[in-house]
């Protein structure tokens, strides 16, 4: 009765093999590595870059232990930390001629030492959280109300223009927090205004209220769906901007994630200089529109034959072409509401479409009217250093706040310019609402602490189980070991983040998993005490204990899932391991340990006794001494 069919043993063997395979990478440790990734949206890392890296290393006399190209970045594994630093310098020198304008991010990293065949099957070591490896964690809150207000502001400008074009005579448009109020004199103009809004402004919905004297107030609000889209876009744009800025920090594996509807989590493993990180995250890159100095002195300076005239400045375009620009700022990024790549309506050339807010469009119209045929420069200031994004010629007066930059541009260039222009400003202001810095030494300490907790607890439990339950104690201990193996394997497989609370959950999971085995062992003893034959006692012990084990695990799992749903940060790290631990314990403590018992005792035909420690009889009869297998 205590026999498993072959397929059950097969499941156990497969589970053990898979578990072992995925646990394996954790034992290899990590090797120093250098990671090369793109530092600009316009620069792609490809096999050509890899060749350059290889050449640079060869020239420096460094033999890398391995070079890995994963589509986005090149990872160079090295044997020593010293070599890592030398390799970084060599690569930096080869790839980045101008340190002020890095096209690539060359960062120090750690790479798993596990052999490539393990990586090929997707086996990777557990992903350690910041508290175990050191680094910075930020949570940023995006001010969505500000994003909406800004959008409404720009829409009210557009509305004014549209009414003028369609000859709708209103007696005033005003923005009232997040709604636009239009005053209209009669029902006829009201109908006209409504049709304009319905035709051209799909994102607005209107309500009307009659005023005294036959006048009307038309209130336009952003539709809920449109508002959601605006918020999503604002969040995406902020994430893009953050990404660009973080690239400068040279972090190997930055994490930039959306959390909830209006939050962004940024994690920078290995970064210690929080002040710099905060400075870069919080920086407001500014965008400025200025006129190009077209005077003779200016032209001379541009061609390099004269000094830069008074009242002007010299900036470089992205292709290193100098441009002499007047110091007077016409517009700033604040007035720019959007920049999108697209095509010119007539020529089908690639173009960038800019949208300006009401104030911006008014200024822009005046400036363009007065400066037809001249050039205008759009500058992006970052780190206090300006760069000319583009310097187009003004062809005609531009009103309405819709600006198109076109000519001499490829589609990719249009795309990148739009990105740069958007990146210049955050879509909505952000503030840091949570911040955590963990020093690298503390991270290593935390790992050892967690490791010691698990190891010592595990050993003491194993010792106790073996003494108290003899052979069954050994089975239980092996099952507990398998539980740990599977838990680590599943965590490695899912690449769930392991934190210190996670390691605590691991220890706790083992402490709770032994509960199932104690239940079974006690039950088997009880059956033996009741006079059942050894085989029957084993069978009944497992059968009867199962219901209880299931109930108790489900209730524990309910608590785990609640923590997973409502927990954040450290609690979530705890909950993930806790839940997985419960599931693996059901397999190892019941299914696997039964397999062991069946394998050991199940084949014996006339089993005289089982080694489960002293089974004490209350009726004063002789205690059943521990015994080994019968004949």
């Amino acid at each position, binding site marked *: 009765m205590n026999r498993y069919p072959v397929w059950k043993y097969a499941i156990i063997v497969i589970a053990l093999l898979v578990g072992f395979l995925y646990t394996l990478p954790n034992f290899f440790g990590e090797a120093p590595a250098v990671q090369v990734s793109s530092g600009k949206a316009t620069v792609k890392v490809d096999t050509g870059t890899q060749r350059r890296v290889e050449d640079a290393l060869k020239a420096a006399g460094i033999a890398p232990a391995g070079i890995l190209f994963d589509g986005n970045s090149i990872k160079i594994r090295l044997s020593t930390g010293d070599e890592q630093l030398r390799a970084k310098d060599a690569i930096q020198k080869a790839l980045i001629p101008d340190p002020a304008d890095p096209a690539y991010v060359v960062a120090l990293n750690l790479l798993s030492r596990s052999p490539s065949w393990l990586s090929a099957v997707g086996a990777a070591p557990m992903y350690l959280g910041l508290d175990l490896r050191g680094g910075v964690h930020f*949570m940023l809150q995006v001010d969505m109300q500000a994003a909406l207000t800004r959008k409404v502001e720009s829409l009210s400008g557009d509305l004014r223009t549209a009414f003028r074009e369609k000859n709708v005579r209103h007696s005033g448009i005003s923005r009232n927090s997040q709604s636009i109020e239009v005053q209209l004199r009669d029902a006829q103009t009201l109908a006209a205004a409504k049709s304009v809004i319905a035709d051209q402004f799909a994102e607005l919905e209107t309500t009307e209220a009659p005023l005294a004297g036959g006048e009307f107030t038309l209130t336009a609000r952003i539709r809920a769906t449109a508002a959601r889209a605006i918020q999503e876009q604002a969040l995406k744009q902020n994430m893009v901007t953050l990404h660009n800025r973080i690239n400068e920090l040279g972090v190997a594996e930055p994490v930039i994630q959306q959390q909830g509807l209006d939050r962004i989590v940024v994690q920078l493993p290995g970064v210690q200089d*929080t*002040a710099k990180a905060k400075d870069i995250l919080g920086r407001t890159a500014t965008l400025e529109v200025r006129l190009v100095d077209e005077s003779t002195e200016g032209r001379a300076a541009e061609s390099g034959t004269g000094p830069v005239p008074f009242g002007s400045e010299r900036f470089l375009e992205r292709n290193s072409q100098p441009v002499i620009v007047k110091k007077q700022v016409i517009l700033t990024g604040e007035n720019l509401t959007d920049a999108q790549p697209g095509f010119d309506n007539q020529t089908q050339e690639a173009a960038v479409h800019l949208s300006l807010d009401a104030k911006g469009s008014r200024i822009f119209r005046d400036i363009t009217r007065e400066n037809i045929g001249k050039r205008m420069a759009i500058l992006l200031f970052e780190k206090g250093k300006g760069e000319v994004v583009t310097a187009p010629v003004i062809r005609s007066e531009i009103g309405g706040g819709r600006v198109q930059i076109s000519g001499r541009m490829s589609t990719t260039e249009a795309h990148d310019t739009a990105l740069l222009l958007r990146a210049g400003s955050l879509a909505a202001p952000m*503030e*840091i*609402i949570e*911040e*955590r*810095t*963990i*020093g690298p*030494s*503390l991270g290593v*300490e*935390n790992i050892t*602490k*967690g490791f*010691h*907790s*698990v190891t*010592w*607890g*595990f050993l*003491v*439990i194993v010792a*106790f189980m073996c*003494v*108290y339950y003899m052979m069954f104690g050994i089975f239980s201990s092996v099952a507990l070991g398998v539980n740990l193996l599977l838990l680590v394997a599943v965590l490695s497989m899912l690449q769930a983040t392991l934190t210190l*609370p996670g390691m*605590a959950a691991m*220890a*706790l999971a083992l*402490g*709770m998993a*032994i*509960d199932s085995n*104690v*239940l079974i062992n*006690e039950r088997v003893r*009880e059956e033996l005490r009741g006079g059942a034959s050894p085989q029957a006692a084993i069978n009944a012990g497992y059968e*009867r204990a199962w*219901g*209880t084990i299931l*109930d*108790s695990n*489900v*209730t*524990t799992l*309910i*608590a*785990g899932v*609640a*923590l997973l*749903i*409502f*927990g954040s*940060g*450290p*609690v979530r790290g705890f909950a993930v391991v806790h839940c997985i631990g419960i599931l693996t314990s059901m397999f190892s403590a019941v299914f696997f340990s039964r397999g062991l018992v069946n394998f050991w005792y199940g084949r014996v035909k006339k089993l005289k006794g089982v080694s489960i420690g*002293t089974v004490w009889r209350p009726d004063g009869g002789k205690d059943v001494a521990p015994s080994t297998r019968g004949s």
Partner: protein
Amino acid sequence: MEFFKFRKDIPFMRHALVLNVVSVVTFLLALFFLFHKGLHLSVEFTGGTVMEVGYTQPADVPKLRSVIAGLGYTDVQVQNFGTAQDVIIRLPTQKGVSSAQQSEIAFAALKASDAGATLRRQEFVGPQVGEELVTDGLKALAMVVAGIMIYLAIRFEWKFAVAAIVANLHDVVIILGFFAFFQWEFSLAVLAAVLAVLGYSVNESVVIFDRIRENFRRYRKMDTVGIIDNAITSTISRTIITHGSTQIMVLSMLLFGGPTLYYFALALTIGICFGIYSSVFVGAAIAMWLGIKREDMVKPVTQKGVDPNDPNAGATV
């Protein structure tokens, strides 16, 4: 080896009243301290800045306190953390000063007074996050309570569900009472521990209830009190051993886990100890007073192979 040798069932239920009075008194005391002293909530809940600073030699805490107080903070806590070299500094949120500046200014002041200071860890939490954590924590608690009650009501009976949840919520309140009385820091990790304890010690009640149900089926002549006594007696060995094993793990965390895991392990320790007490003495007694009967447990067996729509099904002549 066998630790527990009981010749007869221990009459636990005879002392149920006394034991429950003890329980109620502890519970009320815990409630009193909880409301009177309140929890010493960590910065995660209240918002503010925490800095862990390491020194090369034992840190001079009073001096550090005066350095920080010199920056204009009224409510500053400076404590040793784990070792004599490490200190933890808690700063309340200041209006008009961003988190970035706050920790930088404070650390610059510390660095000025002792060049050997290193910033080991720094944490800032905005006030809005703290508020959310409190509501999320309460939601999680509500979900655990509701989930466990529903499961137990389906698996067993509503009386058991009520008894189990009362017994275990009583544990939770007592843990909180301890944290309030000793003014230990109540962090997110402790909250996780409290909820884990809730799930874990329900196990205990489940094991006993399971046995009560089985006994109702097996010993048809025994009365309810006898059945409960027998159920507790026959599971007590298992109860002590499993809790002992879990406690070994928790103890290991308490000893080796360092200051970060200290209160987490402490909450679990209290939870485990009171978990045994409450499921053995409180849970079963409440179920008894709610009036569990054999009929609640042993459902009349419906005959198989009988068409339920047949009006004459089961009819015998």
